């Protein structure tokens, strides 16, 4: 068959798939439902900010120098809670002076307090602030503490040097997360560093990509399988295979369902992204500007989007081919339920290392998983999102995936060709293997 006829038939099959999905009530209903869910999820940060407004964060303040902790606590309370003496309904922090830094650290460790601020005076007379927490202190709140620390430093300088004989030394400020000790938020690709807010943003973007990839590859893969089983059980398959080749039918179905799936993802994501952007403005209007709240989309770079697009297309081609081959061996739609779980195992096996990679882990297992074609669409996307990938790793991962897709697609087409005219029990492993070999 000529190349023109092949392209024509693939497009005809794809177009029919798209039209069928667009007409399907299930498609319309699931799109509306998912879009509503997406908007809901996008508004979660706003909800968290609103809820956080009523939450008072307990902070320990300790210093070896007599009186320093008390003065600092009072100053930060005044600056950060907006009123002398603290204690109003709108206050964010409740500062408690601890004489013993170890006792403060253990109060943080056992969750009684959110963070402990330890103040040390340096040799140059400047103050050093170390904020110890175990993951309960949001980056924006840490930044606020930094502002408070600066105010303490300024007041300390004016009080100690009324004549300004000593030059002002800006207080140093660092946040230590005891629960993230090994992760060193900030060690990015090629050693490039980024701050805590950007790291949080990259995690959010990574989670969105990984969850989206996982759901769409499995969900739309099942569409491919169920579409083929429906054609078999409805016996329209015989007309199809007499009119077009197995390759055209498989490619057309994957393309059509892939495009329908992409359209659905778009219809779900665009309102969610708009809601996310709007939620920052709404939050600012209701609660005042908050530098930590608006940065959640900051990491969504064109490069990441391109990576997502490439991994989604190749990953979908890979998974959809597997689902097409499996679907062609089934005769009844009820059989789909029994194979749905085993079919999703490869994706689930890739999902877990991807989530681990998002938490900052970069173990050899995660690195290897990001090269394995069945898993790289999830794991490498995670690693790209949190910025921990060397160029050669990306090339290896993409190269292996790009090589695997045609091999799996060809095998799936052969299985499809043999499977679609077989009814009853699935063929034996020997027949299955012969089909893959093209025998």
């Amino acid at each position, binding site marked *: 068959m000529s190349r023109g006829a092949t392209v024509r038939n693939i497009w005809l099959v794809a177009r*029919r798939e798209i039209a069928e999905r667009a007409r*399907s009530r299930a498609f319309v209903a699931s799109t509306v439902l998912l879009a509503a869910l997406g908007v809901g999820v996008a508004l979660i940060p706003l909800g968290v900010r609103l809820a956080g407004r009523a939450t008072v964060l307990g902070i320990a303040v300790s210093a070896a120098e007599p009186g320093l902790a008390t003065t600092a606590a009072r100053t930060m309370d005044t600056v950060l809670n907006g009123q002398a003496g603290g204690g109003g309904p709108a206050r964010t922090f409740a500062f408690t002076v601890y004489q013993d830094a170890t006792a403060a650290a253990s109060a943080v460790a056992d969750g009684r307090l959110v963070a402990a601020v330890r103040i040390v005076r340096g040799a140059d007379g400047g103050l050093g602030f170390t904020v110890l927490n175990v993951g309960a202190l949001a980056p924006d709140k840490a930044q606020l503490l930094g502002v408070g620390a600066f105010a303490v430093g300024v007041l300390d300088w004016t009080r100690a040097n009324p004549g300004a004989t000593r030059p002002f030394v800006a207080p140093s400020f660092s946040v230590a997360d005891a629960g993230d000790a090994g992760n060193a938020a900030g060690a990015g690709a090629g050693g490039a560093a980024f701050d805590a807010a950007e790291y949080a943003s990259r995690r959010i973007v990574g989670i969105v990509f990984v969850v989206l990839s996982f759901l769409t590859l499995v969900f739309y893969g099942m569409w491919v399988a169920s579409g083929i089983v429906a054609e078999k059980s*409805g016996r329209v398959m*015989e*007309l199809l295979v*007499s*009119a077009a080749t197995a390759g055209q039918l498989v490619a057309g179905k994957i393309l059509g369902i892939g495009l329908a799936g992409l359209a659905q993802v778009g219809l779900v994501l665009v309102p969610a992204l708009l809601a996310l952007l709007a939620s920052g403005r709404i939050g600012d209007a209701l609660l005042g500007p908050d530098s930590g709240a608006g940065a959640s989309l900051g990491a969504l770079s064109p490069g990441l989007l391109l990576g997502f697009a490439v991994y989604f297309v190749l990953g979908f081609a890979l998974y959809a081919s597997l689902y097409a081959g499996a679907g062609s061996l089934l005769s009844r739609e009820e059989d789909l339920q029994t194979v749905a779980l085993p079919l999703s195992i490869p994706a689930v096996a890739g999902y877990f290392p991807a989530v681990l990679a998002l938490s900052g882990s970069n173990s050899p297992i995660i690195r290897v998983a990001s090269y394995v074609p069945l898993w790289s669409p999830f794991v490498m996307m995670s690693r790209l999102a949190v910025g921990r990938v060397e160029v050669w790793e990306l090339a290896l991962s993409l190269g292996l995936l790009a090589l695997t897709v045609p091999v799996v697609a060809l095998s799936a087409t052969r299985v499809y060709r043999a499977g679609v*005219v*077989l009814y009853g029990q699935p063929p034996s492993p020997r027949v299955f293997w012969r089909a893959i070999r093209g025998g």
Partner: protein
Amino acid sequence: MVLVVDGLHKRFGPVVALDGLAFEVAPGQVFGFLGANGAGKTTTMRIALGILEADAGTVTWMGTESRRLPRSTFGYLPEERGLYPRMRVLDQLVFFAGLHGMPPDRARREALAWLRRFRAEDLGGRRAEQLSKGNQQKVQFIAAVLHEPAVLLMDEPFTGLDPVNVALLREAFLELRDRGRTVVFSTHQMEVAEALCEAVAIVDRGRVVAGGPLREVRRSTGRRMVRISVAGDHRMPWLARVPGARVIQAGMDRATVELEGALEPDEVLAAAVGAGARVLHFEVADPSLEQVFLDRVGRPAEQEAHLAPDLGGGA
């Protein structure tokens, strides 16, 4: 000969579906492919279409192996009827014709013309799931012929149709033949094959057991028959007194009598007149295809051959 099926062999695991099956079909002929369920008819058609691969043997059309030909060379009506349930009839017909390379406008025009001739022009806008089985079958037939294929392969096309639709389909077959199409259809309804076919092949357990022009096949057993109809007692007791005359098919209207040994037809007629029977009809006849089938296969065509596995309705 234009369509040549040559020495086809096909096994499904331990089951032999085709065992050296061979026959030829002349161009522009209506050809009957007769056999019980499981005899190998569907497998042969699927191999001709390139859906299955033969273990050995070839199917050629005009000297070219069928799998090297464009799929639009063939039109196929599968035995298992099926359409997209939620798709409108006209859209389905245009879709399938499109896969064979037919432009949508022309496909739409031709599809409407076929629906009109099947007295089903109102079906075009309906979804397939809203149609009766007979109407779905008509739509599938149109899907098979719409792109004007040179060869039509029809698997049990008359099964499940009411007499009116059988007559419409027969007319369509003859019209397609007159347009120069080669029509091969499988059936186990021998009377349909007798009424339509110029040539037949009787297939059993994957082999052709009789084949060729219809008349030759009917005479191939060497048996001689007369058909006789008399007024009054249809049991024709006088026949018992005619040596060599054996009623092989009794009927209220007419009986088929086989002539054995040296018995001649005129002796049967003379015996009837001699017995005082009023003869309404008398003809010297060839055995029916049904009789040839029973002779060659040893059982009625309605019985399964129990050879092929479940491959979606016969093999």
